[in-house]
């Protein structure tokens, strides 16, 4: 039996046959395997019937032999529907509008979700994002890329330690780690405290364990300071030694500083140019003036356009041209020495833990050599020299 659906999809034609021997023609068609349906007689020598669009050629062939006249009076089915649609300008307009709509909507931020933040921090992040132009409905290609957002957020909001920024389709996802997360306290394993480096002990503060050194003792690196084995002979007990041993330690540093330095400083004046690019070709869209700057720093930023969930081969490019200015800095010898000492101290400070204190500073050596100063310094620092060392049981 014929299948209505298949005929609708493949297309069918209504044929009008005029002449003698129409029955023979139909018999011939049927024997060739053509589907024939809805045969109607209109007058003594006219018949109409339907055949498949794909059988038309075959029918013509058969009809030529039989001597009947063919004419096609109706077309139905998908192929004809498509042909009609194809010629319809409204269809094309609609398709264009649809594609433009999907394109536009694919490039919009639809959602911002922030995970792992307390309500206050979340509010702060949202406010900060709004200031950066990141909000629902903003165009994606006008925003900073995730790394920049991440950096800016971490810089501007003090309460967060880390924030992960990620695009999930058209929504921006922020994973926040806040600072005040209490660390779960784990029971410490038995351990000793040993010296981190050679020092002279200045102060001892032992919470648990057996101290083995006293104030003014000189200790070597790795020397046992507080033992984790307590109790009298034969009744010893292993405990996690805990405490602080402050020792005087020594640091040496050398700083070389040139008297004159030139560097570029941004003046704050900037102009932007916008491009739309395909492959390596960039077409300027906005901003054609020549930058009136003598020195400049150029920043380029490319963001692909998106369609649905894919990145298109087109991209939006923003070029920011910033004016730079050469600045020359020069020191006198005295200023240079002082600056070198400040730098050395700052560098040392950055290396030391926060509770450490610089107690004394001594200039070992300072000299002038062709346009540079060279300063060698010696520091006395009070710091906690105790570091834990686990006791391997069974030793």
């Amino acid at each position: 039996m014929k299948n209505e659906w298949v005929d609708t999809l493949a297309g069918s034609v209504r044929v009008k046959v005029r002449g003698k021997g129409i029955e023979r023609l139909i018999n011939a068609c049927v024997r060739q395997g053509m589907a024939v349906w809805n045969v109607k007689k209109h007058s003594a020598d006219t018949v109409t019937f339907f055949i498949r669009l794909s059988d038309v050629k075959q029918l013509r062939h058969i009809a030529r032999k039989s001597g009947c006249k063919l004419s096609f009076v109706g077309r139905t089915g998908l192929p004809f529907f498509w042909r009609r649609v194809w010629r319809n300008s409204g269809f094309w307009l609609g398709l264009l509008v649809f594609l433009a709509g999907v394109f536009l909507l694919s490039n919009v931020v639809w959602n911002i979700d922030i995970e792992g933040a307390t309500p206050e921090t979340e509010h702060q992040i949202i406010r900060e994002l709004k200031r950066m132009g990141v909000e629902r409905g903003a165009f994606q290609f006008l925003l900073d890329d995730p790394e920049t957002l991440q950096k800016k957020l971490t810089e501007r909001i003090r309460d967060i330690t880390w924030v992960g920024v990620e695009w999930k389709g058209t929504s921006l996802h922020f994973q926040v780690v806040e600072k005040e997360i209490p660390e779960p306290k784990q029971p410490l394993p038995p351990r000793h405290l040993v010296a981190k480096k050679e020092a002279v002990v200045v102060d001892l503060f032992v919470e648990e364990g057996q101290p083995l050194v006293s104030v003014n003792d000189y200790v070597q690196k790795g020397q046992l300071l507080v033992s984790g084995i307590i109790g009298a002979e034969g009744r010893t007990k292993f405990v996690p030694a805990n405490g602080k041993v402050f020792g005087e330690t020594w640091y040496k540093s050398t700083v070389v500083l040139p008297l004159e330095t030139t560097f570029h400083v941004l003046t704050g004046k900037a102009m932007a140019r916008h491009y739309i690019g395909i492959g390596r070709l960039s077409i300027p869209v906005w901003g054609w003036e020549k930058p009136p700057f003598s020195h400049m720093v150029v920043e380029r930023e490319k963001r692909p356009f998106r369609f649905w969930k894919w990145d298109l081969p087109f991209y939006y490019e923003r070029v920011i041209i910033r004016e730079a200015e050469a600045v020359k800095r020069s020191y006198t010898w005295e200023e240079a020495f002082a600056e070198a000492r400040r730098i050395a101290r700052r560098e040392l400070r950055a290396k030391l833990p926060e509770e450490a204190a610089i107690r004394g500073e001594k200039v070992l050596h300072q000299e002038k050599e062709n346009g540079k100063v060279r300063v060698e310094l010696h520091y006395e620092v009070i710091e906690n020299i105790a570091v834990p060392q686990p006791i391997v049981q069974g030793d």
Partner: protein
Amino acid sequence: MVKRWRQQVKRWMAETLELPADIMMDLPRITMIGQIHIYIENHRGLLAFSDKELRLLLRNGQLIVRGEQFVIKTILPEEILLEGKINQVTYIDK
């Protein structure tokens, strides 16, 4: 002579072995739904068709269907489905 004898053997087989007669003896199978549909299997081709009459060739003889407003809904090499108002179905022997 031989042909008639073979025909008789086939009829005997159809009756005693209860095999379908249309297959054994190559006869048409006609299904009618009231007056509105007639479905004929095992025909040998279309002889004449108008909106009042359908003439079909059979293996031996012809089948004439008379009525009004005939439309052939489907036609295949050995099957035909006719729609309309059917008044009579007549066999003509060869």
